[in-house]
């Protein structure tokens, strides 16, 4: 069969809309037909195969092409104050898109299968699967879209499906509170994104990415200044802050762990929170240097702060949640320092091993009968070997140990920050990156030792623990195999050699004017004619060189730090050379700061929530004393006045009113004749009116 672009578009559309069908059917008939969750699951298997075919065809046949398929949805014509606006809907297929679609469908499929076992016996079993279908649909929409409008629509759709799934067990108060918190905190970020979209649309009269990029590369900027472009970049980034749980809006993600664990794996680790990073990847060409610097700072903060928090948490899912924020911070920081390809690479690898970790924790929690506190676990290694091994592999990947995918991608990000440091003299990002790498290895192995090693601390529950069933173990195995490095690069020490980065994912052409870019991103005009290396056209040769030089020092440093972190965890928790409690006592303020999550919730409570309440108190006081005083004073005045007007009313006004009423009654009697209630007399009037109009508008 001849492979054409339209075939790929068709496959992509089927992949997009099948989960919607699954959602609708399962939602409508799920209550009656008990086996309907198999329908939803088979749809996921189908779309996984479709997306695999799609990725294969795209990457082999159309490696360097971007396929855009769009149609005009609404033609608004001539809008006042703006020029003509037409709204196009459509999908865009480039290499980033198809790889991302494949990752989303893989994770979504294994989570579906895992949920068959995990949610067994739930009374809203089918409802749960239909929500998962809605989420898959909207996530694929985000990935496939080629314009800001659809992006925003699907952005909100994943928001609502995340809300529904976090609050799935809404009978519990904390659960419904967590769902509301997630939804509201996300709204704060989305307002920024919405403003950014509005600015772009009113400037360029289009929603499509490619057209906006083209306009900007021609030198048309929002508000005509480079500051306008930075503003738009930062506003759009606000949406990513909310969705990717970046500092300072990260507080919703740990609370979102109240939802079912497979949901945490799918939405709050692998896909939805990565949507923010994906969005940054999409709008990368229009991010100016200043905007990128802000993004890098936010990313570094969100990488560092949650990593320190994760060190002291006792709830296994909270540890993973903070680690997710930290890793997302890594990706955002990588975008900020211009390491576009590595950010995307880490996004993909992180999706697999973090989903594996969450599903592993789900397997543990299920086996321990919904016990999430690591202090009550321990020794599970012997009872749950499969879970242990897969969890270990994924943890190694997260810590960045060689031969795992995480090593490749994390190393890439560190190389990017290192090169950024050597080019701009700004070493803070590299330092943060290395520190976080150490902390990551430490807290992950702390979690493993507390959960799986040592002696069981809760004998009663330990006795009943069994290895999870096949449907739950199989996804773990699949995901842990995907966390190994050979899928991505045959040389386990050099991410640049992987096919993913060298052939498929390349930095896009930057549309930002030269003066607003980082120095090393400026186009070198004499190199433009060289076609062989695309990176060198977009990034300066100095950058490529810096990346090259940064490679080996970074590699050894990060691997050493990761091993040190693991060693430290073993010293503290396995061999107990140092008693962790005593250490905590010595470092009491630091420990408390970390244990209480840097008091973010308290700070927000004290400032925003208490501020709102305080403001309402002040308003209340104002109302009670001042407004009421005025009201009471005026009331007595009014009473005297009213005594006078009462008389006036009775005599003069009532006279008028009665007369008016009488007149209206007369008029009513007249017009009542037309309201016969008979269809035909109404029709008569219609005919006469038509004739009159005919002669007026002749």
């Amino acid at each position, binding site marked *: 069969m001849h492979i054409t672009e339209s075939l790929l578009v068709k496959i992509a559309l089927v992949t997009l809309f099948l989960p919607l069908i699954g959602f609708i059917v399962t939602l409508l008939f799920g209550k009656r037909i008990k086996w309907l969750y198999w329908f939803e699951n088979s749809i996921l298997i189908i779309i996984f195969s479709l997306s695999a075919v799609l990725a294969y065809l795209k990457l082999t046949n159309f490696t360097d092409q971007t396929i855009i398929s769009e149609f005009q949805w609404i033609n608004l014509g001539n809008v006042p104050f703006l020029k003509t606006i037409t709204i196009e809907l459509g999908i865009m297929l480039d290499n980033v898109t198809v790889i991302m679609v494949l990752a989303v469908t893989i994770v979504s499929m294994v989570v579906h299968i895992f949920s068959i076992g995990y949610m067994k016996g739930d009374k809203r079993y089918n409802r749960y699967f239909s929500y998962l279908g809605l989420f898959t649909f909207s996530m694929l929409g985000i990935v496939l879209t080629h314009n800001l409008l659809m992006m925003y629509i699907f952005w909100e759709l994943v928001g609502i499906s995340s809300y529904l799934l976090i609050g799935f067990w809404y009978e519990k108060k904390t659960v419904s509170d967590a769902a509301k918190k997630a939804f509201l905190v996300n709204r704060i970020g989305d307002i920024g994104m919405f403003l950014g979209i509005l600015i772009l649309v009113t400037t360029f009269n289009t929603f499509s990415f490619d057209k906006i990029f083209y306009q900007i590369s021609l030198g048309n900027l929002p508000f005509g200044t480079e500051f306008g472009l930075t503003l738009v970049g930062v506003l759009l980034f606000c949406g990513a802050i909310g969705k990717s749980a970046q500092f300072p809006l990260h507080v919703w993600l740990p609370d979102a762990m109240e939802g079912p664990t497979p949901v945490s794996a799918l939405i709050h680790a692998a896909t939805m929170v990565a949507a923010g990073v994906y969005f940054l990847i999409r709008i990368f060409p229009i991010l100016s240097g200043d905007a990128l610097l802000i993004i890098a700072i936010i990313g570094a903060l969100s990488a560092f702060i949650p990593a320190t928090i994760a060190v002291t948490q006792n709830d296994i899912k909270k540890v993973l949640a903070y680690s997710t924020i930290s890793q997302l911070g890594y990706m955002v920081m990588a975008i900020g320092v211009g390491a576009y390809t590595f950010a995307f690479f880490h996004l993909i690898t992180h999706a697999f091993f973090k989903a594996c970790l969450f599903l592993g924790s789900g397997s543990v929690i299920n086996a321990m009968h919904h016990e999430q506190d690591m202090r009550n676990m321990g020794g599970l290694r012997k009872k749950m070997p499969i879970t242990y091994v897969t969890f270990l592999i994924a943890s190694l990947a997260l810590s960045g140990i060689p031969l795992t995918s995480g090593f490749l991608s994390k190393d890439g990000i560190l190389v990017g920050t290192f090169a950024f440091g050597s080019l701009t003299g700004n070493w803070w990002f590299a330092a943060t990156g290395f520190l976080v790498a150490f902390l990551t290895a430490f807290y992950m192995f702390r979690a493993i030792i507390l959960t799986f090693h040592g002696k069981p601390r809760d004998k009663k529950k330990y006795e009943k623990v069994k290895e999870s069933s096949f449907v739950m173990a199989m996804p773990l195995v699949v995901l842990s195999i995907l966390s190994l490095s050979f899928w991505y690069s045959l040389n386990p020490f050099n991410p640049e050699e992987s096919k993913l980065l060298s052939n498929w994912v390349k930095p896009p052409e930057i549309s930002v004017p030269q003066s607003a870019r980082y120095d090393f991103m400026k186009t070198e005009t004499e190199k433009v004619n060289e076609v062989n290396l695309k990176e060198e056209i977009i990034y300066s040769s100095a950058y490529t060189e810096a990346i090259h030089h940064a490679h080996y020092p970074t590699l050894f440093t990060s691997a050493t730090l990761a091993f040190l972190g693991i060693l430290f965890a073993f010293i503290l928790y396995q061999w107990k050379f140092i008693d962790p409690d005593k250490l905590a006592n010595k470092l009491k303020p630091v420990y408390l700061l970390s244990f209480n999550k840097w008091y973010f919730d308290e700070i927000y409570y004290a400032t925003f929530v208490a501020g709102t309440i305080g403001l309402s108190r002040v308003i209340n006081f104002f109302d009670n004393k001042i407004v009421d005083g005025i009201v009471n004073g005026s009331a007595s005045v009014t009473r005297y006045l009213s005594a006078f007007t009462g008389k006036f009313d009775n005599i003069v006004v009532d006279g008028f009113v009665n007369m008016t009423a009488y007149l209206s009654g007369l008029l009513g009697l007249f017009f009542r004749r037309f309201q*016969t*209630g*008979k269809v*035909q007399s109404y029709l*008569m009037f219609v*005919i006469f009116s038509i004739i009159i109009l005919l002669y007026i508008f002749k």
Partner: protein
Amino acid sequence: MIHIGLNHYLIVSSLLFSLGIFAVITRKNAIMVLMGIELILNSANINFVAFARYGNFGLTGQLTALFVIILAAAEAAIAMAIVLNIYKMFTNINVDEIDTLKD
């Protein structure tokens, strides 16, 4: 004598249309109203087919006429059901006496 053209058909159709309107607004019996509606639909059909013949639209006009006939059949069936129901409730089908909406 002018050769028969588009205008002749249009005149016939406008006469039929007016007669249909007349039936709809004067007759008391609901079934007579229905017949008037059928006349109106037929006059529209004549226009469609005539324009399809004399204009440059291919067969689309005829196809539309076909759809109108089908819709008329559906409409007649539903209308008859409504008329039967009204007859059961009021024991007559005089449109002018069915004015309970007035109160």
